[in-house]
């Protein structure tokens, strides 16, 4: 039985640049802001929509009109009422301007209107399969119109004291130390939230974060807070629970970009050899604590329309060598960019270098920091590069972008960075996005996955598992497909 009161001590890492999730969408911002801001919907762990600010919704037969009914009595943290005008402002004006990822999805939208205070209607230009999947708080957070309309969004002073509708209010932020949120007494769902306050502890060092948990300073370690090597040890502690749920919406999928344009990586046989050469089982067990899964396809198994029916690459150095012999690889050195996000990734790059070395591929690891890595990818200045991306529940949102040729452009590391071009793949993705029925979509996506696994435009690694670790007496911490990012609305601490 849920009880009220108590405080959650959570690790946040790195320190977010800002909590205004409409302007900044990086991981830590989303994690904290999910308590302050809200979207129209939430998604359960099967990615089915759940009410949030919208208490109900309807989709027209032709899949072109989406009507949302809003919750009553919702107030912004400053006391102003939340209305459909806020929704229209947020989606149509504010986020269109500031939210690059949402902007792409909104291209399918013809109009957003508010027939009355409590109703919002989205009209699409053509059917868009994943449309119901873009309403969670990280993708489409609601922004207070009365504060932002007509202002310079970026420099609005309110950015420092974010105002949302969420279960917790912003209270204090001591830079370099902690962020404190307190219970929103006027929250529209009666009795919620249970917690009095949340402390987000900024602890920049992974080892210190582990110590913080062990010494009882923090009680919740969101996924990725501690190095994988520490997970097992910490999970074995008394009163400690661990869950890998709460990442279904993101489906973090890791791979190595392989530069399809030039060098040995331009050869399909080389890319296949890379797949065979890598010992992903070893990486998974030695580096990822056996969490996560081997990625056999461009689509994560938690994302819709995943198929298992593809060409699989098991660790097989002999095959790799044969492929290399066949293509006549001359030992040319390939540059490998590790992901500059901590020790695990560094080790992984070293392991891959070693794996590839064993089949005769000469790898040179190029060290970069985050800025350099971003720039090198955006400018296509690499041979192989680690990365992981989110899939947002639907191949049309989080998969197609990396393989379709219209997405080959410098300046971004989320598009088709590898430079893979296949008209057939382009066409299949295009059809699948606007196909109306699930069956139709599944068929198209299966075909695309089969083609891609044959061509190996990138070398898939793992579907990453980012377990959340917490004291077992913290209940209902992870209830939705975005886990901790969805705020601690339902969480409570058992005596």
């Amino acid at each position: 039985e849920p009880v009220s009161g108590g405080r959650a001590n959570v690790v946040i890492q790195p320190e977010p640049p800002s909590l205004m999730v409409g302007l900044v969408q990086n991981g830590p911002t989303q994690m904290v802001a999910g308590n302050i801001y809200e979207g129209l919907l939430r998604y359960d762990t099967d990615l089915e929509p759940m009410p949030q600010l919208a208490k109900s919704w309807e989709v027209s037969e032709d899949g072109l009109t989406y009507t949302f009914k809003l919750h009553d009595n919702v107030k912004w943290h400053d006391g102003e009422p939340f209305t459909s005008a806020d929704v229209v402002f947020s989606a149509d004006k504010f986020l269109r301007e500031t939210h690059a990822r949402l902007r792409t999805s909104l291209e399918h939208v013809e109009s957003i209107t508010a027939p009355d205070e409590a109703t919002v209607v989205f009209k699409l230009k053509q059917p868009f399969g994943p449309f119901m999947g873009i309403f969670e708080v990280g993708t489409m957070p609601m922004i207070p119109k009365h504060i932002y309309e007509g202002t310079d969004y970026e420099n609005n002073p309110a950015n420092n004291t974010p105002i949302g509708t969420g279960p917790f209010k912003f209270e204090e932020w001591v830079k370099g130390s902690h962020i404190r949120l307190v219970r929103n007494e006027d929250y529209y769902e009666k009795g919620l939230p249970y917690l009095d306050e949340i402390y987000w502890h900024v602890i920049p060092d992974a080892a210190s974060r582990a110590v913080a948990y062990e010494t009882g300073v923090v009680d919740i370690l969101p996924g990725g807070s501690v190095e994988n090597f520490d997970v097992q040890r910490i999970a074995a502690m008394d009163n400690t629970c661990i869950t890998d749920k709460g990442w279904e919406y993101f489906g973090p999928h890791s791979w190595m970009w392989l530069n399809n344009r030039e060098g040995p990586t331009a050869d399909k046989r080389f890319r296949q050899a890379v797949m065979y050469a890598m010992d992903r089982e070893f990486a998974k067990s030695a580096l990822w604590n056996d969490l996560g899964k081997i990625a056999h396809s461009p689509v994560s198994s938690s994302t819709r329309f995943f198929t298992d029916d593809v060409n699989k690459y098991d660790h097989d150095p002999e095959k790799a060598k044969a492929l290399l012999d066949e293509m006549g690889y001359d030992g040319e050195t390939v540059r490998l960019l590790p992901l500059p996000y901590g020790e695990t990734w560094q080790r992984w790059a070293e392991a891959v270098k070693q794996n590839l070395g064993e089949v005769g591929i000469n790898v040179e690891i190029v060290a970069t920091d985050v800025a350099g890595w971003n720039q090198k990818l955006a400018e296509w200045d690499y041979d192989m590069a680690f990365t992981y991306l989110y899939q947002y529940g639907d191949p049309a949102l989080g998969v197609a972008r990396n393989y379709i040729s219209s997405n080959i452009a410098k300046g971004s590391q989320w598009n088709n960075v590898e430079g893979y071009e296949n008209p057939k793949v382009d066409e299949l993705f295009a059809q699948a996005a606007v196909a109306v029925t699930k069956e139709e979509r599944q068929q198209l996506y299966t075909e695309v996955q089969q083609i891609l696994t044959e061509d190996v435009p990138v070398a898939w690694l793992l579907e990453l598992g980012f377990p959340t670790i917490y004291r077992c007496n913290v209940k209902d911490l992870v209830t939705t497909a975005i886990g901790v990012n969805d705020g601690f609305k339902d969480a409570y601490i058992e005596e």
Partner: protein
Amino acid sequence: MLRFILMRLGKAAIILIAILILNFFLIHAAPGDPAAVMAGEAGAADEKFIADLRARFGLDKPLLTQLGIYLGGVLQFDLGFSYRQQMPVADLIFSRLPATLLLTMTAFVISLLLGTLAGVLASARVGKWSDTLISTLALLFYATPLFWAALMAVLLFSVTLNWLPGFGYETVGANYTGFRRVLDIGQHLILPATTLGLFFMAVYMRMTRASMLEVSQLDFVKTARAKGLRSGIIQRRHIFRNAMLPVVTLAGLQAGQLVGGAVLTETVFAWPGIGRLMFEALAQRDYNVLLGVFFVSSAMVLLFNLITDVLYRFVDPRIRVG
């Protein structure tokens, strides 16, 4: 004296500006920029997004124009705005500075006191086992990599023994006030300050010992003995004071360097100081913050040099002030 100080301040200002200019170009020579980093973290971005960011930060202007704008600001005591943290750099730095100063000054004072004390003891017992012990310890401290010592200290004292907090500045959320808070911060301070201090302690110890021994060879010590003075008085009044002169110089140099020199300690102990701020700003290419930190720590170095010089002039009457 005033004239001397003013002169030195003027000189310092010129050096500072030179440092700023060099750092400016240095830092901008790095691949990537804050827009790239922020775009990288955003989870999605396109050309427009990045172009917007750049325009917002003024990064689309020619480099020299940016430099001009920056220097113009600095001359008006404005260190610019942090792209990343969305707040004025000066605020950011001054919010972090106290933590660093607390850490480094504690380490500095501990190491100076204990180091000179140990040095004096060792020099008084030169050749005996206690001298050997102190000198050996000092050498060990000197040779131990700081970050390694820090790791081992955390492992031992906070993890295994659970005596002391292993990271952070204070118990966040405990909301202690008054003396309780001081105590709390004090507890957090022990490990980082000690590990940071160990190295300097060794430095001071070795320096004091050598200096004491050297001074004790000087003629005026013989004079003092010829007067019939007791050796304790000779040690204190004649040898120690003279032996301290080089130590003061060194202490001044290090007091300044401490501000920027605590990066490792702050990283290992998650101390919310300026060194860590610098390291993070570097990773994020938060140019203004980086420049600001360099500016402040260089200013500190210059300030401490000045203080040492002034002090020196008090300690040593031979250096006269015009």
